[in-house]
């Protein structure tokens, strides 16, 4: 199937928000306005790429933007510049056509162009098809290999920690 990948622009936030809502099950998700502010202002906190199909392949609701990846630059105190892929999503009816692989390849290219030595991301262990896909592409599971656990401090715990 014919498709193209390009950098996301502020007009894509509507479709990105749509795909985030469909792909996630949590009730609260960033609104389109948050994505616009956080991704497309002078100091962006993330970057995006979008996969599009030609008009003749649009979905029955009329969407041509059918996949996306969100990423940002991070840093490893051991290995230096790194790129973190926060989200990778392709709408179900467009899977199995190499679009996910192409999106990830683009993130890898962007990372290498910026001098990055690693591409990091997280996957839920119950998402077997994703885990298998990533392992087949040559990555390794750091949680399994080195025992690194992802931790978060938020809400009241964060406020408490900030108290003098």
């Amino acid at each position, binding site marked *: 199937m014919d498709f193209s990948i390009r950098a996301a622009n502020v007009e894509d936030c509507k479709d*990105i928000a749509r795909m985030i809502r469909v792909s996630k099950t949590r009730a*609260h*998700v960033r609104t389109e306005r948050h*994505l616009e502010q*956080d991704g497309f202002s002078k100091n962006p*906190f*993330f970057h995006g790429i979008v996969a599009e199909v030609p008009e003749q392949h649009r979905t029955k609701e009329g969407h041509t933007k059918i996949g996306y990846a*969100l990423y940002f*630059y*991070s*840093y*490893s*105190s*051991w*290995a*230096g*510049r790194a790129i*973190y892929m*926060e*989200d990778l999503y392709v709408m179900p009816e467009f899977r199995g056509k*190499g679009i996910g*692989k*192409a999106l990830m*390849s683009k993130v*890898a290219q962007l*990372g*290498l162009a910026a001098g990055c*030595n*690693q*591409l*990091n*991301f*997280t996957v*839920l*262990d119950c998402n077997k098809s994703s*885990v298998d896909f*990533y392992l087949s*592409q*040559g*990555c*390794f*599971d*750091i*949680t399994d290999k080195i*025992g*690194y*656990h*992802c*931790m*978060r*401090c938020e*809400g*009241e*715990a*964060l*406020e*408490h*920690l*900030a108290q*003098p």
Partner: protein
Amino acid sequence: MEYKLRKAEPKDVSDILRLVKELAKYEEMESQVTLTEKDLLEDGFGETPFYHCIIAETPGENSSDEPDVVGFAMYYFTYDPWVGKQLYLEEFYVMDKCRGLGIGSGILRHLSDLAMKTRCTGMMFVVAENNQPSVQFYKRRGAEDLSQEEGWRLFRFDKDSLVKMATPAEE
């Protein structure tokens, strides 16, 4: 013990690298540190910094001595499309001889305050599960282990795999 926290400056890169290597040694992975002072300088103090750093220092032995750099935290900002900006704590270390004096707690407090001021909804980091003193230090302060509680696994493509993946497939 009297200590001071301040933003890192270019002159601090040699102390930062020294402390990075000390922490890596503690985790028995010293050989994995390939970063150089030049990388730290370019990546942290250029036009678009990839990281930010705060330094903890204590007074020198004599009043005329330079202060001693005894701890640091390296962090940057990340994004979760569900809940927004996060402060990501990449590295956090206080020298052995200065532990138990409140310096670590002071650094964490400073960073949490910074996270709130910059409208982050959370602070994130990774810890090795066999580093129980650190795991307990964070859990006591309210951190959740997302790997344990929600099943998140951290995956990585290293440089060779990255290059392979960046090469477009033959159609």
